[in-house]
């Protein structure tokens, strides 16, 4: 048989194989010990040495050729099998993702963090104080006269032992000033936490809400410093373009006292629903600590001045995130809370 013909036949046979075993079997049908090449060689038993040499050479070449064809086909088959395996393993990437969700902070925490972060950078210490406070630290030291309406039990929750549920976080100011050892030339603290007012809960009132109160007392602390701090805070919270406006006001613990408005972050001062068409939004109260408060807390008001401010966290959260009903903040619907997942 013609060697070339055998190679061709082998090629066809091998390439017709559909799996590796078949290829190996087919291969040995041609180049195995009992294969067709061997048959050809054995048929040359009586041929001349020359012919034997020539054909033997061809047969060896054919062995190599057929092995190569087989190897190649095995590679192809392998590739096909790999491909098929991968195809079988295909998943639908458009099916929904698993339901793993990281948790979310509560919006009140988010706002508290934003404010605290600012004061943290400014070197303010952060305190939580105590929610059940002595009347002395909630009112007396803060210069609230005995007949001040805020002291009435229709406004404030009183409990036993001359204590009450604090009505503001300014108690933290009184506490910190009273224990200040004047070992540094100034003291900067912000206090935050729950405060309580004897109000029926409705869309804008809550008997429990959160505040941040802060102060900076030291030598040479001035109103201009307060204004700088509030301007920076407003920019930090509401963006670099934010402007502030101070309006005269009155708080027993500060003198002078101001209400602080920021330019409306929604309409940039042009007038919209959020700012009630005024371009300004009231955001906090502030002022220079009343000398009486300093003296009540054992700080020499002829040597030290200080500013103080108080921010309603719930109010800022409602403004900033457009929450219309304060009660929604305390419902704790997880779908609502998950809105703040990025914070």
């Amino acid at each position: 048989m013609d060697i070339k013909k055998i190679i061709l036949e082998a090629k066809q046979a091998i390439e017709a194989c559909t799996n590796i075993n078949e290829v190996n079997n087919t291969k040995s049908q041609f180049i195995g010990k009992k294969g067709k090449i061997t048959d050809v060689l054995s048929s040359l038993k009586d041929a001349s040495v020359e012919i034997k040499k020539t054909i033997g050479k061809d047969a060896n070449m054919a062995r190599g050729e057929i092995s190569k064809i087989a190897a190649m086909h095995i590679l192809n088959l392998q590739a096909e099998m790999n491909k098929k395996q991968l195809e079988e393993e295909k998943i639908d990437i458009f099916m929904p993702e698993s339901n793993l969700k990281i948790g979310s902070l509560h919006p009140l925490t988010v706002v508290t963090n934003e404010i605290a972060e600012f004061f943290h950078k400014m070197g303010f210490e952060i305190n939580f104080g105590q929610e059940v406070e002595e009347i002395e630290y909630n009112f007396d030291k803060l210069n609230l006269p005995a007949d001040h309406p805020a002291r009435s039990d229709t406004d404030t929750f009183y409990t036993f032992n001359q204590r009450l549920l604090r009505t503001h976080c300014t108690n933290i100011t009184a506490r910190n000033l009273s224990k200040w050892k004047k070992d540094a030339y100034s003291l900067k603290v912000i206090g935050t936490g729950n405060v309580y007012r004897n109000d029926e809960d409705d869309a804008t009132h809550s008997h429990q809400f959160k505040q941040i109160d802060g102060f900076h007392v030291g030598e040479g602390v001035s109103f201009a410093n307060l204004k700088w701090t509030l301007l920076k805070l407003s920019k930090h919270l509401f963006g670099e373009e934010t402007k502030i406006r101070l309006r005269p006001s009155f708080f027993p613990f500060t003198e002078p006292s101001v209400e602080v408005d920021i330019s409306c972050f929604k309409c940039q001062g042009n007038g919209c629903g959020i700012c009630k068409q005024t371009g300004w939004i009231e955001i906090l109260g502030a002022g220079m600590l009343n000398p009486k408060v300093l003296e009540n807390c054992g700080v020499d008001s002829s040597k030290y001045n200080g500013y103080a401010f108080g921010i309603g966290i719930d109010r800022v959260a409602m403004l900033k995130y457009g929450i219309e009903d304060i009660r929604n903040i305390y419902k704790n619907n997880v779908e609502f809370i998950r809105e703040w997942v990025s914070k």
Partner: protein
Amino acid sequence: MLLSKNYLSSKLNNFNISNEKLEEELNNLGIEVETDDNLYVPGLKLGYVKECDKIPETKLSKAIVDLGDSETQILCGCPSIKKGIYVIVATVGTTLPIGIKIGKRKMIGHESNGMICGLDEIGFNPKLIPDEWKDKILHIPKKLAEKYLDTRDANEIVALNDEIIEISLTANRNDIAGQNDVVEELSIFHSKKRAKKQELELTYNHNVSVESDYIKGLYSARIETGEYDKYNKITFELIKLGVKPTLKFQDIMTYMTLNTGVVFTGFNEEITVNSDNEIRVNDKLIGLEPNQEPNPNFITLSVLDKQYSRFMSRKEKLTNIFVTKSLRGICSSKIEIAYRYFRDFIANHLPQVKISKLIEHKNTPNISKPVTTTVEYINELLGTELTPNKIHKILSQKYECSLLVNVIKVTPPCSRFDINIPADIAEEVAILMGYDQIAPKAYDGIQLNQAKGEYSELSKIKSTILSFGFNETVTYNLVNKNDNDLWNPFNLENQVQVLKPISQEREFMRNSLLFQNLRTYDYNKKQGNKNIKLFELANISTLNSSELHLCLVCGQEESINGFTGEKIKTDFYYLKSIFINLMNKLGIKNDLEMEYINPNQNILHPNKTAVFKNNINEVVAYIGETHPFMKNKNFKGLNVMEVNIDVLLKNTKVKIKPKPISQFSTIKKDFSFFLGKDESVKDLFKQIKELNYVKDLEVFDLFEKDGEKSIAFSIYINSNEKTFTSEEIQDISTKVTNIIVSQNGQLR
């Protein structure tokens, strides 16, 4: 407090300003503008009813109304309509404040081109309209109507060509009690108009004594009221300013009170008996009691006793005007001004009224107290660099003020009770020059140091819990008594009870965060929310202490993926791992003792709940499942954890000491054994973990059969120094099996 823009305008020069500008000026004075309302109703006309016929079988009348330039037919349902009266007509195209737009209509076959109006339809508050004018059309007297026949603008007749501004005042500004006080404030920006002076002929003179525990009259006078014209503009002004008119002379006094802020009170001479030409005044105050004697003939300008004012306001359910005014700062100088204002007003507007000479009573006048401060103090407090002359100039705009070198002496009017200390003067400087004139300045000593405080631990706790997918809640701290009675896991004493709570639901500060978060879980479940995992971090307060607590609530399992079937069991072991992770994150050494919770409660499952205690036997935390026999069915089958963070943080801190990384591979050995169902692996695992070279222990199987539990676990053996020989491994294995046997385990 309500202000009429027209009134302000009548008292001030250059007052033709926009509402925005006015608001800005008031803001800068520390007077907050709440609302402003334009009362003007375009299209309201004065009409004359020329013809009027009842339409049979209806309540309607058909009126032919003369509007000056035209005549039109209007149907009217008010029974008081008749021929020959002047009325207010809302012409076609008018939109009334109550929301009705007037168009051409056809009713029961008759055309109607407009609407004849009553006061409640054109914007007056129905609650303040006098009863005799309520729910009916307003008849305008001929005499009054004839004054407006040229313009026929009905707004002018009832004083609606005005804007009402509602302001709110801070507690220190007791001196701003009347519209005139606002005029006084605004006169910094707009000079005051000169009042026309017209002296009255004064006829009466009496010796008067005011004998009352409540009234401290300073001035009094006798008046002859004459006939009172109820269509006087004051009637409409009062409604605008929030007072229901009585349509009697006392309306004048109310109006005087609204303008001056001083309480005018009136008496009727008949009920105050004379003797020796003396008038004794008793306690019946006409000005305070709306429906009393019609026309007083004796007035006083008084300071009322505060308690009496409160008493009167409650008893008579007054509009509170007199009460609030009389509680505000009235001083003798203001009363004198008020009296003169009253006298001039009568001379200019009410010629029929005669008034006697003012009689002054002996009363201690308020004395103005000067306040002294220095230029340096003001500049230091405000952070400004104002010159002495500049400060003097600023303060002189409003106050009697003197400057000596750098010492400033300001004498505020006696009504400004709130100006007493140098800081008050600094505030006045800031207000008068404007807060926008103070340049923001950084404090020289601002250090960007690392702040101390409790905040960093808090964010560690929160980030740990968040990473497990829990959502933060903020719930109310005040709860009902029952909550606290049922559940006091941390054994708190000295509970905080609110003495006058809003309701019983909000009477006590809570002992534990658990119930409020169980309720929140239940609420979310009812809302149909999935995979609800909640945490709260809040203070738990007693009378003497305040401690930070963390609470976690979740269901039995969390479905991660429905079609792959992946689930997380959010059970006791899950919460326990969160707790251990939390301790690791906080760097706290876990040497807490665990025990089963006291079974004498119905809140948590006695055999599925652990209490963690520290070495001084304080409760640090509990982790467990809600009690299957719990009363509230909605709370059943939830897994919960509550940690007292403050107690937890007292535990020893772990220091970071990195160990060398082992060069040798770790060997794993498996064991399995039976243990009695009621026996615990507590000591068994503890002893194994304490063996040398045992780095970790992992349970990979646990099942119960025939009253025994089968436990299979692996230990991981590793050393930094060597590869173990098989003898050494066998040795460790023997130690492990010995421990198992010594703890009543049967090797499988």
